[in-house]
């Protein structure tokens, strides 16, 4: 009986193709939007989670400027000096490395190719703390660091776009006004959680950076990587203690620097992404509601149109419950069709969007299943009232209707 109802429903849908499509549009758009948004949002969350590991494991970053007071490293903040970095290097226990660094945007030129990239001055420990790998060559040495040699390490984007086919190792790259010899190429990290290309980077000895690029000896941040994740809180406290001492922050005064746990920042970003996804999906769900009302409307029209048919069915032995089932099945079949089309549309959009936004395209079967059953539920809910109206028709009245 149920199968007969499904066949009958499919036949009705086929008979009114255009009307069925228009009716389904609401469901299609609603399901499509939810699927696309949830899939993209999931992709973005996955990406943030993946970026979290790329940031370097167990990393704490100290920056000048009081915590929660404007952007870190603001112009009025007292910068770190090499004394601060040295104090941390000698004072901290249980850490893999302490990496002071400074940053500046600058133009790099090789041959006829130029690119604006982020220039970082650092020590070799930087590559360990930030979890960088080398695809070619190696880091500059400790002696290069001490001497302030004209050497540098480049990111994948530079190898691809600036060197464009030329093996960069041993080549001379002009950074700002400074020519430097490339000693290594870093493995690709891709986009950061903050949306910038982490591979558009040049890393050189901190001393060379201070002399030739920045023109001062400021250190913009000190990254500390702990050996064990459990030690992060105690190391964070030690960093604060040591920096307060070297920077002569009086007791009772606030820190004039901040120490942040990068994993926490990434986790916050990830949850922000989830909230955004949730909100957008809620908006999309409203269109599902509208779609449901469309279904109810067209089912009511259908019942009115087929009053005579219902009368015939009741006269030849259909029970009211069977008529109810038939119209409910029709509404559910209609909605499930809309759901299927919507899922296909949503996944298609998500695949396009994922390529565009450069987030991974991960289809979650549970979301697809949920959207499918949700559209069925909409059919049940919004189909019930029209179906009940059909089932309650008086057969004599119904047969009299033309």
């Amino acid at each position, binding site marked *: *009986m149920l199968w007969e109802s499904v066949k009958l429903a499919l036949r009705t849908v086929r008979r009114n193709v255009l009307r069925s499509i228009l009716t389904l549009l609401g469901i299609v758009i609603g399901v499509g939007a939810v699927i696309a948004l949830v899939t993209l949002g999931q992709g973005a969350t996955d990406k943030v989670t993946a970026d979290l590991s790329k940031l370097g494991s167990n990393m704490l970053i100290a920056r000048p400027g009081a915590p929660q007071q404007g952007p870190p490293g603001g112009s009025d903040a007292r910068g770190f000096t090499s004394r601060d970095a040295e104090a941390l290097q000698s004072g901290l226990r249980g850490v893999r490395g302490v990496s002071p660094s400074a940053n500046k945007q600058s133009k790099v030129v090789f041959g006829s190719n130029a690119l604006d990239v982020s220039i970082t001055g650092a020590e070799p420990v930087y590559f360990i703390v930030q979890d960088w790998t080398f695809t070619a060559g190696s880091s500059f040495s400790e002696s290069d660091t001490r001497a302030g040699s004209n050497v540098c390490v480049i990111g994948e984007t530079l190898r691809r776009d600036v060197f464009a086919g030329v093996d960069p190792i041993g080549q001379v790259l002009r950074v700002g006004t400074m020519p430097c010899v490339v000693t290594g190429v870093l493995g690709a990290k891709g986009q950061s959680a903050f949306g910038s290309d982490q591979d558009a980077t040049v890393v050189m000895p901190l001393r060379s950076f201070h002399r030739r690029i920045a023109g001062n000896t400021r250190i913009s941040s000190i990254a500390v990587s702990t050996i064990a994740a459990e030690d992060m809180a105690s190391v964070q406290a030690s960093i604060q203690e040591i920096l307060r001492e070297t920077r002569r922050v009086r007791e009772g005064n606030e820190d004039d620097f901040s120490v942040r746990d990068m994993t926490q920042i990434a986790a916050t970003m990830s949850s922000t992404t989830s909230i955004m996804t949730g909100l957008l999906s809620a908006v999309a769900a409203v269109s599902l509601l509208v779609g449901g009302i469309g279904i109810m409307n067209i089912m009511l029209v259908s019942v009115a149109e087929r009053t005579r048919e219902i009368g015939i069915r009741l006269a030849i032995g259909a029970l009211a419950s069977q008529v109810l089932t038939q119209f409910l099945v029709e509404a559910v079949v209609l909605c499930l069709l809309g759901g299927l089309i919507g899922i296909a549309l949503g996944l298609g959009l998500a695949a396009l969007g994922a390529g565009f936004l450069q987030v991974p395209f991960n289809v979650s079967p549970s979301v697809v299943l949920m959207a499918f059953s949700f559209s069925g539920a909409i059919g049940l809910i919004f189909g019930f009232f029209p179906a009940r109206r059909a089932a309650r028709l008086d057969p004599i009245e119904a047969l009299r209707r033309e």
Partner: protein
Amino acid sequence: MTTGPKLQSLISFRNIRKIYGEGAARVAALAGVDLDIMAGEFVAIMGASGSGKSTAMNILGCLDRPTSGDFHFQGVDVTALDNNARALLRRNYLGFVFQGFNLLARTTAIENVELPLIYRGMARAERHALAAEAMSAVGLNGRENHTPSELSGGQQQRVAIARAIVSNPLVLLADEPTGNLDSERSHDIMKLLQQLNVEKGLTILMVTHEADMAAYATRQIHFADGRIIEDRARAA
């Protein structure tokens, strides 16, 4: 079906009344009807428009309820049954043929005939065989896959009769079955009904206003103003 008074008749009406409207607008469509129908009868119900014959037919078909009176079918008090029980009674014992044929459009003849069996939950192969049998009983072999629009009025009414008898009912209720047909087709349909009555012992109740159609019946009942004014067996 063992409850109720033991009656010989298949259908019995005792003082059946059907009142429409309230107060001053009250109209008695049936003003106290007594009627007994035995199994195997072919009854023609006649009367002018508004005489109450259609109302009587609707009550006989368990499509409508009387306002008062007793209606027993096979000894069961039908007035006490709820909608669902009456639908089951229709399904199990009654077959309907209408003036306007009332076939489902864009649905083949055999699918129309199978429809009552689908609602009875019969398996596909079985109902297909029964439907084919009913189609051949009404002389429509080879038309199984035609849709109503591809059939003549007479053929459509035959399909409707096949649909009514496919479930092997006790009673066939025909409401002006020849009303939409020309004279020749009308006589064909009446001969078919007569044949079903004689050969299968099917009890037939037929509403008609044409005397030459009523002549096929074994008994003629005339309604006027909500009452039976004449009830006679066919002259032998």
